[in-house]
């Protein structure tokens, strides 16, 4: 009798655990479904082409215009800028930590780099807005201390820990035999790093870049605070020194004030849906690249 209730209990617990295992899938599907549900009504008023390629985001004018092109390009500028800074620095840092640094220094460096990821994004935004922005505006003779490049700079530092830890995992996974054969053939340590280790860790490094990209494009508070929030289409290289507005910042700044189920509300969900699809694609590709290479964990 007792044994039977135990059995039943166990069966119940194990069922629950099985269900919990599926939760991650359920939540991804749910998030997608809810974004889609609240974004779809916007297509009644506008065509997809109109939304994606429209040059004007004027949600409060009459008639309202929901062209996402300035927001998409704003995100692109800030993200590309962040990658240009964070990829070389992060990769160099990973190589330094895993191949060159003395053991003692390594033990100090790793937690310091991780600290960069632990600082809340609103604090980066705060520092950018009150201190770094005004400094740079002064030094570069800019009219205003809030511009795309400042967002890129801060995002780069937030993305560096991701780039460092994923590339470092990839570099550490390179078999020692490869290094030793290269050194035995008379190559210097640097030649070994650049011609043997880094190429062998290639797929992990690509994954690191993609994950860094995903982080940068989805970052919200910092960009909201430091990029000036002007929904204009950035032009050329000069665009880095002018205010822009990203997709994330638009949602964060406007969602608090819109009426429930207004066209503006649905348009913001459409921006969210687009963001979700972009990060979904980059993460899935990164995961596939890593898995094909085998071994390295994406975190």
């Amino acid at each position, binding site marked *: 009798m007792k044994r039977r209730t135990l059995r039943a209990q*166990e069966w119940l617990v194990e069922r*629950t*655990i099985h269900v*919990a*295992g*599926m*939760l*991650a*899938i359920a939540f*991804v599907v*749910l*998030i997608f479904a*809810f*974004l889609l549900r*609240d974004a779809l009504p916007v297509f009644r008023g506008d065509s997809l082409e109109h939304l994606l390629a429209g040059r004007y985001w004027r949600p409060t004018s009459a008639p309202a215009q929901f062209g996402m092109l300035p927001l998409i390009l704003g995100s692109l500028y800030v993200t590309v800028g962040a990658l240009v800074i964070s990829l*070389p*620095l992060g990769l*160099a*840092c990973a*190589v*330094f*930590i895993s191949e060159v640094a003395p053991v003692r220094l390594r033990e100090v*460096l790793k937690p*310091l*780099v991780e*600290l*960069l990821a*632990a*600082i*809340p*994004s*609103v604090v980066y935004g*705060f*520092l950018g*807005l*009150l*201190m770094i922005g005004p400094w740079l505006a002064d030094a570069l003779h800019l009219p205003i201390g809030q511009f795309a490049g400042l967002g890129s700079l801060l995002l780069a530092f937030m993305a560096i820990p991701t780039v460092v830890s994923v590339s470092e995992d990839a570099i550490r996974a390179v078999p020692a035999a490869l290094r030793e054969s290269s050194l035995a053939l008379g*190559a210097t*340590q*640097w*030649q070994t790093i*650049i011609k043997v280790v880094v190429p062998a860790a290639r797929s992990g490094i690509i994954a690191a870049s993609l994950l860094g990209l*995903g982080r940068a*494009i*989805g*970052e*919200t*508070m910092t960009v909201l*605070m430091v990029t000036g929030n002007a929904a204009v289409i950035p032009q050329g290289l000069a665009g880095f020194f002018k205010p822009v507005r990203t997709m*994330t910042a638009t*949602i*964060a700044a406007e*969602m608090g004030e819109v009426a429930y189920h207004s066209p503006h509300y649905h348009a913001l969900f459409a921006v*969210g849906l687009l*963001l*979700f699809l972009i*990060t979904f694609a980059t993460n*899935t590709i*990164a*995961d596939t690249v890593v898995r094909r290479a085998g071994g390295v964990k994406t975190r």
Partner: protein
Amino acid sequence: MMLFSAQRTEKLAFAALWASAAIVVLPVLGIIAVMLYRGASGLSWGLLFGAREGLLPAIVGTVLLVSLTALIAAPLGVAAAVYLNEYARAGPLVRLIRLAIVNLAGVPSVVYGLFGLALFVTLFHFGRSLLAGSCTLALLVLPLIISTSEEALRQVPQGLRHASLGLGASQWQTVRRVVLPNALPGIITGLILSISRAAGETAPILFTAAFYSLTSPLPKSVFDPILVLPYQLFVMATEVPNVPESTKWATALVLVVVVLGINLFAIVLRARLRGSRRW
């Protein structure tokens, strides 16, 4: 004919590597120094614990928010990790679950905010509240809890499981009496790390939980909106013109101390626990 000998090139390259490590690390130290210097001068007993215009309600609000978040996310995350590490067989389903976890971890935080608004605030009628914010943040930290718990479970030696099963224990008895207790320290460390993550997040609670006030009481139930530190800092920095500069810096310092303090606690705990294990 080479411009530099291999040895010269190596020297230059290594110098560049040292430099890039310095470029990454020096700003961290700089940020901490500036925050301490400017924040400490604005910090006062009144600002921290004053009955009016103090940060205490926001600190308490943050603690409530992250506690409820952990309470919701921990059972789900640990159960999912147990499934993945103890029950699941490798195959397309597990592959799909892992892909979902990676993607869940990559969803932009503001998109979690949108989802929370549509599901918890509106559909479930939680309103803009502590509960809606905690549910939203719980989703955000779930992938982190799953992956750290899984790592902790993986560290438990296979021999322990075999010994337990060999004595006639069922699989669930083995998990509950042998595997989980041994993985507990690692699981708790992961949980603390995710609490520190949740404590600093702003975007997910913008439209699901937070409001700003300098003179506000604490929430009376889980259905009340709350004051939290990151949102307080955001509003002070961007929207309220007459907050003294020193108060802003002090608020930023308090937030950083709270978040990094929790983080450091987890790191120290991990190092301690790692030292005490022998397998």
